[in-house]
């Protein structure tokens, strides 16, 4: 450090040396100046002394020699001169008289130089003093003094002065050096050493510099400073140590914190993973939107619950409104119209998510129900939980049905009790009243009156007995306590027994009883007594409700499910039944009409008992009736199958319909205002074996369509009164006409719109026979007998359809579920399937899907029979073979028949590999 500074600052010169150099310089200079001054002074003093001496000598000489000169006494002069020569300084002395040297002496002897040579010689001082007498110069004394004595004195003086100066210098130097060394240099060096040691970090080295001077004070201060520094350093060290400790603590903390943060991050990641797992694992759909209404996260279940078109757009970041709008625009929700239109619904839906008030329930287009519970989060987002409540809804519906049924049953029971009370009281009134009178007023009765009264009492009593028996029978059957003697029964014997009893009943009301019993009817498995009771019940009902009409019993063998049955159809020409009455006819404890029962007698329980009995025997009773025209009650009893002799289908299979003759394929209505076009089309239509009828205007066409029930309609678009689109719309809006296939025949290519509006075909003019044939031939009708399969879980409805199809000349089998239908289809291929949709087990949709996947079944046309309003998605699910949809209720039988005919007329008579086989 020091050396470094030295090198930085140039050559190091100690203070002592600097001081000494300065002191020596000044002292030397002063001493030298003093020496020279002293020398110069002594020199001038010597010179002056010498000159005074000379002057004095001269003065003495003038005095002394005045006489000699006056006397011109040479001797005296010479003596004087000699005396002068006692002074060693006199080199020359001469006495001159009037230019003559009277006496002269010179120390150099003979060769003494003239006086004049001394005058200008610096080594000598000369004086020439005139000697006066009486005011007259009588001579001159000339003296020369040597300056050697002066010089010697000067040299001596100088030597003394110089020697003193040197002595003083040396003394001063030594003193100075000692003093500076002792009081400055050494303490400073010591201080420096201490400072160096301090600089080197040794703060414990005390600075031991004595002295009561500035350096001492400095040293003391320095030492104090060292102390302070040491204290400071100590403190610094301490604080440093503290700092280091703090630092270490801090580092430790940082490390801990870092580890904690890492752990927390791992924890957060794992928590996030767990959250995702949790969200994924919940059985409800979960979706979270942030405060900007962007989707943050949703689970798989949520996606599953969305219709596919909506699930496609679901991704983080998608806006809630986009989701809602997409759902509405794609028609994925069913309540749009109820809500007052798409936009209103969207706004309502968004509004609800902003301010959720209880869960909302959505009915999706695919039929599913979801309940959405929404909550706003603290951050302003929205959490939605979606629950598929389709099953719940179905369950609710089932429960409602069950509740309704229970309530109906309860109501029916009350009603039954009221009716029973009424029915018991009525005959009792007569019995009690009459017997009271017979007892109290026997004397007042004429014999005729008495007899009449007794007869009435007896009748009423018998009626009461019948009533009680029926109630007991019914309760037995209801409770499953009715014991049946099931055996093989010969149908002919059964029929003959019953007819014998029924004939008087028929004749009583003037009815003709007609029996049709084919010879090859197989025996049935039944309790003979109960079978007779059932048939007698049906026949006595028929006889009671018809007056002067015809009652007939027609026996036939029919295919029943997977087996065979014998059908006993009892028809009458009585008052018939309304649809509502038919529905209630067999219900427990309910009579079609209590007053009817009174008018026509009977307990009103007979049918309920009969149906239960026949069902217990594996059969059933169905009814078909037209109000005011009469009813057909059909009792079915299963055919008794004997080993080795399987029951067979009726031998009277309908003959296969051969190629259709001209004019039997049906009528085609041509609606066209252009006569030429009509003629051309008529030519083609005749060529294809159809009859053609014409309408030149739209209104006329609609009227003809209603009256002529054509097989197909060709429709021109450009007409004066009502254009073709309007006619098409009107045709499709009329339930009776809607199924008549319409072929658009026009000049412009508007096939897309045509098909969209329900046209069956589209042709541009000019039309060729082949093109028309391709469209019309599938729709030809005739005497073709179709085989149909009715799939319906409601046996009543199935039978009704079966009876209707039979009336229309078609064969129909009926199965009560999708599974049975598949079983049936394995051995049979019907021309058409009448399919109910809502069935337990495999429902109509699933059956249709199953058929689409089967090579032999995918071409079988389907007519859907349902009480449900089908959505577009449901229609699509049913496939392309659906020919039409028949509503399950609200249609009169004739209307239904017309609709079925129209739908079946569109069933193509495609060649099939295997015609319907009899079931073995």
């Amino acid at each position, binding site marked *: 450090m020091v050396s470094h500074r030295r090198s930085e600052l140039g050559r190091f010169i100690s203070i002592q040396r600097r001081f000494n150099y300065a002191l020596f310089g000044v002292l030397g200079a002063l001493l030298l100046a003093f020496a020279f001054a002293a020398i110069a002074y002594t020199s001038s003093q010597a010179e002056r002394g010498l000159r005074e001496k000379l002057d004095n000598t001269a003065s003495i000489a003038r005095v002394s020699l005045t006489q000699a000169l006056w006397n011109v006494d040479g001797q005296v002069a010479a003596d004087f001169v000699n005396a002068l020569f006692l002074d060693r300084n006199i080199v020359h002395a001469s006495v001159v008289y009037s230019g003559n040297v009277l006496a002269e002496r010179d120390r150099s002897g003979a060769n003494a130089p003239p006086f004049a040579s001394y005058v200008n010689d610096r080594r000598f001082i000369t004086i020439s003093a005139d000697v006066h007498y009486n005011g007259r110069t009588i001579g001159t004394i000339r003296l020369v003094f040597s300056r050697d004595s002066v010089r010697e004195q000067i040299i001596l003086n100088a030597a003394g002065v110089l020697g003193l100066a040197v002595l003083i210098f040396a003394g001063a130097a030594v003193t100075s050096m000692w003093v500076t060394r002792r009081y400055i240099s050494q303490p400073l060096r010591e201080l420096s050493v201490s400072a160096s040691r301090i600089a080197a970090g040794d703060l414990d080295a005390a600075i031991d510099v004595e002295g009561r001077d500035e350096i001492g004070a400095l040293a003391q201060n320095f030492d104090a400073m060292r102390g302070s520094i040491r204290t400071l350093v100590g403190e610094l060290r301490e604080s440093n140590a503290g700092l280091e400790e703090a630092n270490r603590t801090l580092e430790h903390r940082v490390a801990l914190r870092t580890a904690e943060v890492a752990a927390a991050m791992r924890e957060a990641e794992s928590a996030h993973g767990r959250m995702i797992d949790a969200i994924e694992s919940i059985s409800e759909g979960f979706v979270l939107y942030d405060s900007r209404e962007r989707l943050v996260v949703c689970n798989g279940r949520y996606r599953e619950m969305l219709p596919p078109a909506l699930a496609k757009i679901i991704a983080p970041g998608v806006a809630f409104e986009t989701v809602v709008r997409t759902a509405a625009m794609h028609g994925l929700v069913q309540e749009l119209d109820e809500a007052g239109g798409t936009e209103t619904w969207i706004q309502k839906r968004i509004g609800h998510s902003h301010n959720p008030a209880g869960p909302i329930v959505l009915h999706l287009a695919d039929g599913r129900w979801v309940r959405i519970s929404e909550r706003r989060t603290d951050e302003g987002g929205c959490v939605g939980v979606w629950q598929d409540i389709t099953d719940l809804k179905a369950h609710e519906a089932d429960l409602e049905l069950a509740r309704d049924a229970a309530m109906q049953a309860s109501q029916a029971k009350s009603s039954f*009790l*009221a009716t029973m*009370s*009424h*029915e*018991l*009281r*009525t*005959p*009792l*009134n*007569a*019995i*009690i*009243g*009459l017997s*009271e*009178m017979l007892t109290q*007023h026997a004397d*007042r009765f004429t014999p005729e*009156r008495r007899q*009449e*009264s007794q007869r*009435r009492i007896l*009748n*009423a009593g018998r009626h009461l007995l019948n009533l009680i028996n029926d109630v007991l029978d019914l309760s037995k059957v209801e409770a499953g306590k009715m014991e049946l003697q099931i055996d093989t029964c010969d149908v002919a014997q059964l029929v003959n027994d019953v007819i014998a009893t029924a004939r008087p009943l028929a004749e009583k009301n003037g009815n003709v009883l007609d029996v049709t019993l084919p010879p090859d009817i197989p025996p049935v498995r039944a309790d003979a007594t109960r079978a007779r009771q059932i048939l007698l019940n049906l026949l006595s009902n028929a006889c009671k409700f018809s007056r002067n009409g015809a009652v007939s019993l027609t026996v036939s063998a029919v295919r029943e499910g997977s087996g065979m049955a014998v059908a006993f159809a009892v028809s009458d020409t009585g008052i018939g039944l309304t649809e509502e009455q038919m529905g209630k006819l067999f219900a427990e404890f309910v009579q079609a009409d*209590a*007053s*009817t029962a*009174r*008018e026509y007698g009977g307990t009103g329980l007979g049918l309920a008992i009969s149906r239960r009995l026949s069902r217990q025997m594996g059969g059933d009773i169905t009814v078909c009736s037209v109000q005011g025209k009469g009813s057909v009650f059909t009792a079915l009893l299963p055919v008794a199958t004997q080993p080795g002799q399987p029951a067979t289908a009726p031998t009277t299979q309908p003959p296969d319909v051969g190629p259709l003759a001209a004019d039997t394929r049906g009528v085609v209505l041509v609606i066209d205002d252009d006569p030429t076009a009509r003629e051309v089309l008529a030519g083609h239509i005749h060529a294809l074996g159809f009859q053609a009828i014409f309408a030149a205007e739209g209104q006329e066409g609609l009227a003809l369509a209603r009256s002529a029930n054509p097989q197909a309609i060709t429709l021109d678009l450009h007409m004066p009164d009502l254009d073709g689109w309007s006619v098409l719309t009107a045709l499709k809006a009329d339930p009776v006409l809607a199924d008549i296939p319409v072929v658009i025949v026009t000049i412009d290519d508007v096939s897309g719109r045509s098909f969209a509006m329900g046209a069956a075909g589209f042709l541009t003019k000019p039309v060729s026979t082949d093109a028309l044939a391709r469209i019309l031939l599938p729709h030809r009708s005739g005497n073709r007998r179709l085989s149909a399969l009715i799939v319906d879980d409601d046996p009543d409805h199935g039978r009704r359809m079966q009876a209707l199809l039979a009336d229309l000349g078609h064969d129909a089998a009926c199965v009560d579920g999708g599974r049975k239908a598949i079983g049936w289809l394995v051995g049979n291929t019907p021309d058409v399937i009448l399919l109910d949709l809502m069935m337990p087990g495999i429902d109509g949709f699933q059956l249709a899907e199953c058929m689409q996947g089967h090579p032999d079944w995918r071409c079988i046309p389907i007519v859907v029979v349902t009480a449900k309003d089908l959505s577009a998605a449901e229609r699509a699910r049913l496939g392309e073979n659906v020919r039409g949809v028949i509503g399950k209720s609200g249609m009169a039988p004739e209307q239904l028949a017309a609709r079925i005919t129209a739908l079946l007329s569109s069933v193509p008579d495609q060649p099939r590999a295997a015609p319907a086989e009899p079931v073995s």
Partner: protein
Amino acid sequence: VINLLYVEDNDDNAFMLQMRFEMLEGYEVHVAANGKAGIEAARTMRPNLILMDIGLPDIDGLEVTRQLKTDARTRTIPIIALTAHAMTGDREKALATGCDEFDTKPVDFDRLLGKIEACLR
């Protein structure tokens, strides 16, 4: 002589009640077998009192009562509902429709006579 109209579809019951009144002096009983005939008879013969069965084949006895009670010609004729409907509420229903009295089958004849006399007073 008190003229009674008995609207009753059950032949045995009509016969019985007719016999009972025959045994008394001062009653003439006319029977109508259904609602329409009952209304017709009430208008033409103007009976002193009507005994009305409720379960009638064509028009319900209560409906017949309602029609008679809204017709100026027959409004004043007292009507006693006489029915085998003896369940809770049947009486109230009958009185609410306009019947002046209600009695159930089987008939307690003395009680019925009491009610008839009370109605005629």
